[in-house]
């Protein structure tokens, strides 16, 4: 069955990625695990942009540009998040969000 040229296929894949990211955010009890799950959320959104760009958009460059922006934002977010996690680990010796809940003593 040919499903690779159907818009709904890509939208369903993106929805499944979003749900997996959401589940990972709930499931992981460490900040790095939550960061990894947030990458899935962003990729679901980016895949959605690309699917609509290929199948319905009047200008087929816009979706690619937005997906590039999402990639850049995800890279910036990951850089900031990783350095914050390292600082948090230095201070608390742990990455469990339940332990790291008081920001200032």
């Amino acid at each position: 069955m040919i499903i690779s040229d159907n818009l709904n296929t890509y939208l369903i894949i993106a929805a499944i990625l979003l749900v997996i990211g959401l589940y990972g955010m709930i499931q992981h009890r460490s900040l790095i695990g939550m960061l990894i799950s947030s990458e899935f959320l962003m990729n679901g959104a980016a895949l959605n942009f690309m699917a609509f760009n290929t199948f319905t958009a009047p200008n087929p460059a816009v979706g690619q540009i937005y997906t590039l922006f999402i990639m850049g934002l995800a890279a910036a977010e990951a850089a900031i998040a990783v350095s914050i996690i390292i600082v948090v680990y230095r201070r608390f010796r742990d990455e469990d969000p339940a332990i790291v809940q008081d920001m200032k003593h």
Partner: protein
Amino acid sequence: MIVYRYIAEALFYAFMILTFMGAFMAVRSQMLMHAVVGLAVSLLGIAGLYFHLGSTFLAVMQVLIYVGAVCIMIAMGVMLGNTPRQIAEKNLKGRNVLLAIGSCSAVFISLFVVLAQTGFAPAAERIGDMSISFVGENLLLQYCLAFELISVILLTAIIGSIILGRGGRDGAVK
């Protein structure tokens, strides 16, 4: 000719399975390093999906930026943070897993219902094509401001992470 079509379709299924397996590995694995590997595998699968969507440029960018940069950075974060062997006893268990799966599938079902009830019509006329030159033209003419803002955001992120990570091994941020 039809043979190539079926080969492409088989590759599509392979990329889809790669994406989902990597995502499950990232979410359910007991060690954080395995989760990072799962993330990399899943992002490779998504790059293949971009290829199927007709954008070679984004597929290459996905491999370069996500698999090449973000995954390596997260792996560095795993190694600098807690010990790699961890988390096993900290994951959700029992009833909470069922609750998490239930709420996530509720989100998926509501998205699916919205998707099933909406008809997406293709655009009446399309300008340009999916080529890199057209993307670059749009990026430097119509979306120039957003392009510059992204570079400023990346610069801010780099400076911010350098400042945050500058403190000594046992000290707080200076």
